[in-house]
């Protein structure tokens, strides 16, 4: 299973990564959104990183609290979306056996389904789903071939990066970027970028 200290290391690494990249994210959002993705995610993940892992009985409890903290501190669309991701991820992560690529694949898939339900976005609409969905698919495919957690996450990261890069040429049809119409092309989606960072953090800390 995913132990509490490993989950805490993932959240801490992601909080640091978001902090380092907050201006990159805000700059992407400035071009096709409303200039706040970096500062909002940074505020939310700083609150998550401040949680004391010792206060939680298991990783699921910590990740659930992380989700609720994001809902309560981020605002915008990212708060409910990332919050729902972690709440569903926490609800799916297994309680017995060792952490496997299969268990991780199921948890990421549950998170993705939560994001789809909350955001009502489909593939190809220039959102975080365009990086998260291929990453989940790659993770589950690797798991089906009995790959190690490290190898499965490595292929998920490269699928996410590819998916993120694929959003550059997409036309946004959901969220604030959709108001720009054709002018939304040419910039990577900020949400697809921040969720790729989440996968990269997972690869560094969960394997």
């Amino acid at each position, binding site marked *: 299973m995913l132990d509490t200290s490993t989950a805490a290391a993932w959240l801490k690494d992601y909080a640091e990564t978001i902090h380092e990249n907050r201006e990159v994210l805000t700059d992407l959002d*400035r071009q096709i959104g409303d200039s706040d993705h970096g500062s*909002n995610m940074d505020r939310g993940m700083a609150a998550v990183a401040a949680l004391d892992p010792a206060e939680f009985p298991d990783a699921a409890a910590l990740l659930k609290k992380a989700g609720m903290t994001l*809902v*309560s501190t981020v*605002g915008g669309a990212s*708060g409910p979306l990332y919050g729902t991701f972690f709440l569903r991820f926490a609800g799916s992560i297994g309680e017995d056996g060792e952490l496997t690529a299969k268990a991780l694949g199921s948890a990421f898939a549950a998170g993705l389904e939560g994001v789809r339900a909350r955001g009502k976005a489909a593939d190809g609409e220039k959102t975080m789903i365009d990086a998260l969905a291929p990453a989940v698919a790659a993770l589950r495919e690797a798991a089906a071939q009995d790959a190690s957690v490290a190898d499965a996450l490595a292929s998920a990261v490269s699928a996410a990066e590819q998916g993120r890069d694929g959003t550059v040429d997409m036309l946004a*049809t*959901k969220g604030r970027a959709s108001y720009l119409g054709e002018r939304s092309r040419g910039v990577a989606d900020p949400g697809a970028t921040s969720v790729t960072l989440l996968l990269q953090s997972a690869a560094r800390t969960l394997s």
Partner: protein
Amino acid sequence: MKKLINDAGDVVAEALVGMAAAHGDVVRVDHENRVILRKDAPRKGKVGLISGGGSGHEPMHGGYVGLGMLDAACAGEVFTSPVPDQMLAATQAVDGGAGVLHIVKNYTGDVMNFDMAAEMADGIRVESIVVDDDVAVKDSLYTAGRRGVGTTVLLEKIVGAAAEEGQDLDACLALAKKVNGQGRSMGMALTPCTVPAAGKPSFELGEDEMEMGIGIHGEPGRARVPMGSAREVAAQLVEAVLSDLDFTDSPAIVMLNGMGGTPLLELYLVYGEVERLLTDAGVEVARSLVGDYITSLEMAGCSLTVLKADEEILRLWDAPVVTAGLRWGA
């Protein structure tokens, strides 16, 4: 960035301190939840009206809390939706037993956060109206739908009057839907604006250019066009609104709104052009409002809102209102 602030991270919290200090006769502020409440909330038996959204649009929404308008407003970070905890705290604080109406502007984040708050409000009947009046956005499969802009102000006033005189939640919701369906807006900008936390202007605009069809979050509009005269701008705004809905068969309430960085002198000048164009097009302007009512920080520019009214809507419009941003009849 040159702004009258102390720290970019404290802008909203510190503005709420000032709001409480300036308007303590009308409102009280829950600083922990960043909710501006009507001083005498909850009112027993009265439908509670709540709105909220990102900060940076002042006087909306906190400036519209008070007698005859909102019972509470949730203040998010600048241009960022508030979070469900705030809306839940506001809902619980204003519920007087007659239920609560959430007035939500149609932005992805606002809708999601208000949805989550409504799901969390056990034991209180909550209904929602999502305002989507911006004709600059095509309502199609290819957008998140029309944005909620100027009609929100008129709706908060009109439905606020209905709630104040004791109309129930179903009646308030039906009226809110009617007002939203009959209001249309179109905005334009001469300059971008700077979100304090971002520190840089939200887009760039040349000296000889303007943006038509802007929203209220510093986002670019639908088209960048050469700078025109006030007469030309007025004609484009009026044309965009009138081509979307027929306003010739009933009296209209017209708002010419400043985006935050345009002097009243220019707003009146534009309003003069707008009213002449509307009258020429057969629209009977029954009431008007000119000034900064739904702003986008220091952006220069304006928006036009036209609401198709009737005797009942005009009666509610004229009813007493006592808020920081609108005050008459009391």
